């Protein structure tokens, strides 16, 4: 499923929340308003009742049905929403007073108040009565029924007031709430996406900047500029970190390519200049022979370098790792030691292998041979002349087999040690070829070891010499 846009999600959520809050608040306000409206009707009815009672005591029973004081008490003639009033004595068939409005004829219910609402003497009851009935029902009357002892009998007075106006007011209020609530929700729906866009503007800007980044501008101009909100800072620094790592990788690759180009061009330049110099003028046969030998030497050097570059390229293509087979490491090391010892004796040096019994590792025999050839080559090249190179094989406990190639060479500065496995690394940036190495031997060794899940380390000490320690998984 396609993920919803964050704007849509948030606007919907915020709008729904606004709607819910407004609904709850409106409902509460509506109920409160309704109660207060009804209370105010009851209060009015109470005042009317008290007025009538006072009038009855002071003025006596109304003589005519149209006595002004009573009319006034019900508000007739002063307000459209006048109350209605009926006064009668218990047991008497005729009313003492009946107000009747031509606008709202006295409700039938007022003439026959429901018996269950009849209050005790000296008390009141408040109740709703319907004005009219059936479909033409025009509203509700709020009525107050008071019964008091009066002139030896019991006087009843019933005052009623239409509450339809209150309900009309309530209706208006409800409409107002709906309009306000609805428009607030709509405004939220419209505003929230804008707010989100505004909030996301730094991401949008960063996106624009990210689009500009190429492998050339990873490190510096590529950095996401500008301040971002606190919430986005971890994201920003993670992104910056990633860009830096990529930049480093690209730079390493570029450096490697540049170094490889340099390493290949130099012997080419020498060969070309040798041949061109040779051709500049006629020479003696001996001079030509010397020149050819010279160039052949450079061809050898280049052949070696190209071989190493190819090995490295093959190792880099990690999807082509050959299946590991069981290799007798002790046999391999012994045969290598023999070969190198023959060679070393010519220079007055020695290569010694200490036999530690049969040891098997997982790997590829050709690669392992290349690995230890490179290490022995380095030991011979950089160790002291006439020194002894020792190969020890330790089949300790645990899953590892440890091989150590040790020479009596002087100390390698500690700051140089971590770089020794870098491609084309030489302590001196001149890449001088006085030593004859290509600067790839240890890099190849490391790739071989890492590919088989092992590790390789180098230690150097002026007293004890230099050791390269290789750990490979035991078969």
């Amino acid at each position: 499923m396609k993920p919803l846009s964050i704007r849509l999600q948030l606007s919907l959520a915020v709008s729904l929340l606004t709607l819910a809050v407004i609904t709850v608040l409106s409902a509460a306000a509506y109920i409160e308003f309704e109660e207060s409206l009804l209370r105010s009707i009851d209060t009015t009815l109470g005042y009317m009742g008290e007025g009538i009672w006072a009038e009855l005591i002071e003025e006596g029973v109304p003589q005519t049905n149209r006595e002004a004081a009573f009319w006034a008490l019900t508000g007739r003639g002063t307000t459209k929403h006048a109350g209605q009033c009926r006064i009668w004595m218990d047991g008497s068939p005729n009313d003492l007073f009946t107000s009747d409005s031509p606008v709202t004829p006295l409700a039938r219910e007022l003439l026959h108040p429901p018996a269950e609402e009849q209050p005790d003497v000296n008390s009141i009851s408040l109740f709703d009565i319907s004005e009219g009935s059936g479909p033409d029902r025009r509203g509700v009357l709020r009525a107050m029924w008071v019964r008091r002892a009066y002139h030896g009998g019991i006087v009843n007075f019933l005052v009623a007031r239409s509450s339809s106006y209150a309900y009309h007011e309530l209706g208006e209020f409800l409409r107002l709430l709906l309009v306000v609530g609805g428009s607030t929700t709509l405004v939220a729906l419209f505003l929230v996406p804008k707010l989100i866009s505004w909030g996301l503007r730094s991401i949008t800007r960063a996106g624009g900047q990210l689009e500009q980044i190429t492998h050339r501008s990873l490190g510096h101009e590529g950095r996401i500029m500008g301040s971002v909100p606190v919430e986005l800072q971890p994201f920003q620094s993670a992104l910056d970190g990633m860009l830096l790592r990529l930049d480093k990788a690209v730079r390493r690759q570029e450096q490697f390519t540049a170094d490889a180009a340099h390493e290949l061009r130099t012997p080419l330049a020498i060969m070309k200049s040798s041949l061109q110099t040779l051709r500049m003028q006629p020479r003696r046969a001996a001079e030509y022979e010397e020149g050819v030998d010279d160039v052949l030497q450079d061809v050898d050097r280049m052949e070696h370098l190209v071989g190493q570059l190819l090995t490295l390229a093959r190792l880099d293509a990690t999807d082509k790792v050959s299946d590991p087979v069981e290799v007798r490491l002790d046999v391999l090391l012994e045969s290598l030691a023999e070969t190198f010892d023959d060679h070393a004796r010519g220079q007055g040096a020695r290569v010694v292998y200490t036999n530690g019994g049969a040891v098997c590792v997982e790997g590829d025999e050709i690669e392992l041979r290349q690995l230890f050839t490179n290490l022995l080559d380095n030991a011979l090249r950089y160790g002291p002349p006439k020194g002894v190179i020792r190969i020890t094989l330790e089949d300790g406990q645990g899953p590892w087999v440890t091989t150590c190639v040790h020479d009596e060479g002087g100390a390698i500065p500690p700051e140089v040690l971590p770089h020794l496995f870098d491609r084309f690394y030489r302590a001196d940036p001149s890449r001088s070829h006085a030593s004859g190495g290509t600067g790839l031997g240890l890099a190849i060794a490391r790739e071989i070891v890492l590919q088989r899940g092992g590790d390789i380390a180098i230690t150097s000490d002026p007293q004890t010499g230099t050791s390269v320690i290789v750990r490979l998984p035991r078969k």
Partner: protein
Amino acid sequence: MRVLIIEDEVKLARNIAKAIKETTSYAVDISSDGEDGRHQALSNPYDLIVLDLMLPKVGGLEILASLRREGSRVPVLILTARDTTQDIVRGLNSGSDDYMTKPFDIGELVARCKALVRRTYDRPDPVVRIGALSVDTSSRIVTLRGHRLSLRAMEYRLLEYLVLRAGQIVSKAEILEHLYDFNAETFSNVIEVYISVVRKKLDVGSPDVVIRTVRGQGYVIEEATT
């Protein structure tokens, strides 16, 4: 003329030196590390320096910077495996006069070297003429009134230097510094000996061009005034 090659690939330096010596009359010194190269470049009045960039101890651009800081006007040709436009621009902007990338054509290198030297002496024309004397610095052929003079290597070297600086007084010390490489064994009156040989070869009947001795200062080559 005297050239310094600062290049850590010994074989390459040797090849360049050989090519320069065989096709020009220049004396050539070789330095195979940056520190020694800088010292030599600063202490001898070279007419040209061929400079590698990646050198042991002191880098090529650093050597170049030291030279220019010291006010040296020696032409510098950078010879390096760094071949990106950026590298070339940086090399030229650091005060070098020319830039060649490895692998290069040795004939082109020598031709560029000669061109740079000609510019230094403000002689864009490879053939320098003084009166009836004509010295072709590219083919090293000297003619006087149309007749070819046969000069030995050192004699030509001396004549070329004097001719390039025709009209100026050239001191003995300058001649020694510009004509001999570091390893040459010189003795004090060697210059006088060569001067007299060249004078003799120039003196064919009525003299056209003379090498005049300016007492206490040196020599000057000029048209003979009759």
